[in-house]
Structures are given as structure tokens and as C-alpha cells.
């Protein structure tokens, strides 16, 4: 695990952060610098479990509705603040609508927000998901 964390730190350091202030248009143009790999999705899942399940549920379907009228993450067509990878990143980092808080103070590196974006996209219907990038061994 320490090695994994070290790799994350290196990757994080190598990737430039997105601009501090983003409009929705800016966000739409952003591209995910982290490849849609199994490793990234797994890391994103850890982030998701730690930060997102109280509103969006373990499976992302937001069926509990305990503390917010949250979006069903498995249906990108229902996303109120856009479903491009940049828009999802923007929603997580800076908050979305009146209910979703910004997570930039809780998720240490933007790389991890991108990992979370990849995990969220893995919840989509199969036909809408990106193809997994297989890493060289």
C-alpha cells in the first residue's frame, strides 16, 4: 500500500492542477489526465466510499436520500451539472447546485478527483462507459 501511495504522489506531482476557477464552459473542455484504467477506478472507488456514499449510496444510485436530494450517478442523462469528465470533475472539486459541497478541501490531490471521475463513469450503463485502458506490465 505504501508503494501505491508513493506512486499516487508521484503521479499527482507530475500532473498540473486544473485552473482554480472554472466556468461550466471551461469545465466542459477539460480532459481527464488520468487514464481510465482498472487501477484508477479502484482508487476512485476508495475515494467514493470515503466521501460520497452518504448522499449517493454505495452503488451510486442515491436511493437513500437521507441528507440530500442527490443525483443518481448511474444515469448520466440525469446529471444536472453536466456529465462530461471535466464537468464531473468541476462538480466534485468545486461543488454543484445548492446541495453538493466542494470536496477540494477533503480530497487531497486533484489526481484523486480524476480517479473518482473514472470510478463514477464506471457506474454508467455499459454502452456509455469508456473502454478500459490496459496498462503495460
Amino acid at each position: 500500500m505504501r508503494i501505491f501511495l508513493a506512486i499516487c504522489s508521484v503521479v499527482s506531482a507530475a500532473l498540473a492542477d486544473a485552473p482554480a476557477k472554472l466556468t461550466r464552459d471551461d469545465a466542459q473542455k477539460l480532459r481527464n489526465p488520468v487514464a481510465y484504467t482498472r487501477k484508477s477506478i479502484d482508487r476512485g472507488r476508495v475515494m467514493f466510499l470515503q466521501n460520497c456514499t452518504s448522499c449517493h449510496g454505495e452503488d451510486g444510485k442515491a436511493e437513500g436520500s437521507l441528507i440530500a436530494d442527490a443525483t443518481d450517478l448511474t444515469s448520466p442523462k440525469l446529471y444536472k451539472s453536466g456529465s462530461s469528465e471535466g464537468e464531473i470533475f468541476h462538480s466534485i472539486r468545486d461543488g454543484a447546485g445548492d446541495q453538493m459541497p466542494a470536496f477540494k478541501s477533503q480530497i487531497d490531490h486533484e489526481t484523486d478527483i480524476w480517479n473518482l471521475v473514472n470510478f463514477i463513469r464506471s457506474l454508467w450503463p455499459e454502452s456509455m462507459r469508456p473502454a478500459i485502458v490496459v496498462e503495460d506490465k
Partner: protein
Amino acid sequence: MSEKPETKTVASEPESRPSRRGLFSSVGAGAVAAAIVNPGKIFAATTPAIPSIRIAKDITDSLAEATKLGSFDAKGGMTGAEVFAKSCKDEDLAALFCCPGNYQIINAISAAGIPAFGGRSEGSMTSAADGFSRCTGEVTACSGTEGPGFTNMIMNIAVAHRARTPLLVLASNVTIATDDREYFIQTGYQQPTTEGLKKYGKRLIAPDRIHEYTAYAFRHLKTGVPGPVHLDFPGEIYNHRFMAESEVKEYYSKEKYRTESRPHPAPKDLAQAVDMINRAERPVIVAGHGVFFRKAWEPLMVAAEKNDVAVVTSGPMRGHFPDEHRLSASLSPDAFMSADLVVFVGQYSMPSKTERWRFHPDAKAIRVNPTGEDLGRNWPLDLGIVADEGAFLEGLASDLPRKKRDAWVGELAAARQKYEKQLLDEYEQGVKHSQATNTVHHAVVCKEVHDFLYKGSIDPKQTVTGWGGWTIGNCGARWLRAYRPGQEVNCPYQYSAVGPDLAMMIGAGAAVQLGVGPQAPYKGAPVLVITSDAGIAYSMFELDTAAKYKIPIICVVYNNNAWGMWPSAVGTPRSMHMYLFQENLRYDKMAEGLGARGEYVHTQDDFRKALKTSYEVASKEHVSTLINVQALKDFTSQKDYPPGNIINPEPGVGALAH
């Protein structure tokens, strides 16, 4: 504080109330904010002819009465209620909070000399008992009358259940003779009503078994994992007269009906735990409420310092490991992800890896619990140990080798520095929002409370605090600190009930007033609660109770004119009205009407002054104050007022649930 309080009750002090004349002259006057609704004739106490609020002589006389335990040698022998009260006294029941009803039982308990407090609603009194226990670790009782009084307690019993509070719930319940007949009023089946909300419960149906079931109750309250115990008393039980001890079945002393023996860790389990901790690079102990209830903070400290093990507290109270300690991880949330061993000790409400906990799922886990049936639930374990928390920690303190972990300690420090910077950044944003709106943002409220309690002239360890509410609660919890056992009550822990906060903290205030357990060094100090306008509606009348018993509490009400969940209506505008209150309601005026002080503030400076004044009055005159802090509902949303509301995952400061 832009308006001078003008209630004449203040100026025309009765003999039994502390003077506040001097206080208000120092507060000063200001212009009434234009937007404030004039409460007008609601508070007719401005008319000099109307008598002042005061504590009745009957109350002070009653409190001065000598105690009187029942005796079989008395002319009429002992009633069932007196037998029960004597057993409660023998068991050191710490306090009773109640409303009238269940008369024979509450009268007997009070007569026996157990501190007793009568309040304004059964639910709030239940939470007051809960709060007393959360900051002392002691068994407390609550009581209400059968039927409506009892059902008023349900939400608050559920709160205590999720927090594993050793709460003795008492209620009268008509008579056995009228069972199932829908006879007269207040009939109800109580035990099924508390199903799922208690550790143990019993409707007493045989008078001569009253002591036997008292023993059942205290075995459950004082052994294993605590939780509420509910006894309901039909009239035949509490009114039964016993002329001799021999008429009461199984009338043994507590030494014979329960044991103080505790499970100690098996030597091989302890050795394995010591080995795992010693081998780990970044071990962390999650010190749950079991550590507090077992008063095991000293061996926890020794064990942590001996081996440089990080500690984070979790549960319905904080302080059993001090926040300022170099090994405290409570303010270092970003460090959790690199912990490679988590040791749960007395964590009664277990999270799972698929919930909002910050540890890495690959971290190894040890869990220590006083009973075995819960080990392995939710969180897969590398080692499960059945042991009393104190016994386990004493074992660790003894057997762990001395070790330094400079890298780990440095990581904790860096994470803390980052977290504190985040808080300051939020505060800076809050200052701007406050100045732009002529109101007070929640981050500003909480930072001011923090600086006043911990950075000023008051001993930072002195004041017991609690918090509730949504936007303000989540923020307040990030700023409140705990430097000694029982210093912070996490009112919404793991149930998130809206509203018991003030009542819970009045119970905590009673514990401080009496100097019970860890509160002894701070006996008589004020307590402080941060809550919301939504929450205050549920227990505000208990300010009367605080005034009656001279329990000094400073109640900060974040008045944002709305339920915290108002954003849930944003997508359906026709629903919004259901989420909003009238704007600029004056909770300070309502507090004055209940015999407390009221302060109205809408600027940061005024809030700072109000805190100072309120604390002085609370300390010197034992008078409570409600500070109505005007805010905006829109501060909850990050859209226009970043960062908005921030939710805090467990464990550590700010967390209310997993």
C-alpha cells in the same frame, strides 16, 4: 446585539434571581435592524405591572429538603417505589431527569437524595439524562408518565440507543388489573414500543420481584456494551407495600446480583496485538466510547506514548484523548489513508469499509470489544479480542515496547497543519460573506467560539461543549476542541436527531454543576451549545429548566430562517415554503420570556462581545443566555457562498456518523 433588551423583568429583579441590571447597562444599546420583526405585544412583560419571572420559593424550599430513604421499619413499611429508589441509590444512579407523572417513582428517587431535575417535556428530559451520561460515563435515568409522556420520549430514547448510552428509562403504566381493557386514559403497550431501541426492557408484573428486575436493569446498564434499559411500572408495583425485607424476593445487595469482574484479553491475543502494533509503520487506535465509559484514558495515553501510536477519538463524546497531543489524529484526517493498522477499542457502532470512513481498505484491523458477538460485524478483522477496554489498554501500556515513529508523527503534524489551514481558509471566506450581507456566516460563528473558549483567558479545558444543527453543526464540530475527558458532547452522533442539543447540554450542565466524574475539576463552570433555529424549537423551553436549577448555559442559535435541508426544494420551487420559517425570528426574546438572557447579533464584533458577556454572567451569576446569531439560509450553498456546508466523514473532529 443591535437592540437593547427592554424587558422590564430584567430591571425589576425579584429577590430570588441574580441581578442582571449591571449586565445590561454594560451591553449598551443600538439601533434595531430595520428588517427585524417587532415582536410587539407578544412580550408584554415590558409593562411594569406584570410580575417578573422568578424562581418560586416553593422550588428553593423543595431543593433544600432533607433526603429520606424508605425503610421497612417505617410505620407503613416501604412501597415498591421506595424499594426501587433505594436500589437506585445503592447503585449510585447519578441523576434523574423527568416530567411529572410516574409520581411515586420520581418522588421516591428524589426523596432518596439522587439529584433530580424536572423539566418541560419528557423527550427533552430524556436527552438531558443522555447528555449527563455522555460527559460523565455514569448511569442516569429519565422518567415520564404513561401514554403521552412515555411516547414523547421515543425519539430521544432512540438517540440514546444509537449512542449506547446507559440510560434507565422509567415510566408508569396504568395497572395490571386494567391491561387490555382500553380503560380510561394513557393506556399503551410500552415494551413493544421500545423494541429495537433498548438493550433490555421489562413491564414489571409481580410486586415482590421489583428488586429482581432492578438487578436485571443495572446488570445491563453496568456490564458489557451499554444501552438504554426500559422499565414500566403498573400501579400495583410501585404502590405495593412491603412490611419486611423478606417479602421482597431476591433482595440481595449489588455485590451478589452483579459483578465488577471484567474480561481480560487472552495472553496470546494481547501478545499478537502487541506484535501487530509494533510491526506496523503507521498504527492508529480508534478510541471509541467504550474507552470513555470504562474511564480508560490513562492507559490509553501510556500505551500511545510508549509506542508512538496515533489515536483518534470516535463516538458520542470526545476528549478521552486530548486534541492537542502530538499523537492525536483527530485533526489529521488526511493521514488516515496511510495508516496500515487500525485498532478499534470500544467502537460500539462499527462502520464498514463501504461507508464514510477514511482508512484505506487494505489497512489491517484489530477490534477490541467487551462482548464477542459483534466482533467481525461490518469490518473484517485480522484480530478480534474480547476484552474490557480498560483491561486491554492496560495490557498494551504494560507490554508494548518503547518505540519512536518520527515519520508517522511528522505526517500527523503535517496533516493537522493542512486541516487547520483549511479551516482558516473557510473562515476567511466566511468573513467576506458576513461583511457583504451584514449577517454572520457559520464559519465566523464557530471560529469566534473557538477563539473565545480556547485562545483567550478561559482555561481551554474548562468548558464542556455540544453541538447540533446541520450547516452550523457540521461547522461547529470542526472548530470545537476536547482537551480532557468528557469535554465535548457529540449530540447528533449516529442518529442525527434534530433538536435534542440544548436539552442534552443542560444535562451536561447539571453534571458540571454537580462536579460528577471528569467534570469535578470544573464544577460550576458554564457549558456551551451551538445549535440551529430548526433544532432550538424542539427543546428551547428547557431554558426554563436551566434557569430554575441555575445551570449556566450559553446557547448559540444560528438563525438562518430555514431548515438546513432547504436545498432539497431547489429543484421543485413549489415545495420551498415547506422548508422555510418566517425570517428574523427572535429566539433571544423567547429566551428572555423563559427567564434566560437574550442577545441578538448580526455582526462578528457583536457576537464576540455577546460571547464574553454571556460567559461572564454564566460564570458569576449562573444565568443562561441564548445568543441569536442572524445568518442567511443561502450560506448553506456553495453556489453563491463557498464553501457552503461541509460534511465530515468519520473518525475525528466534525464527524457525526458513519
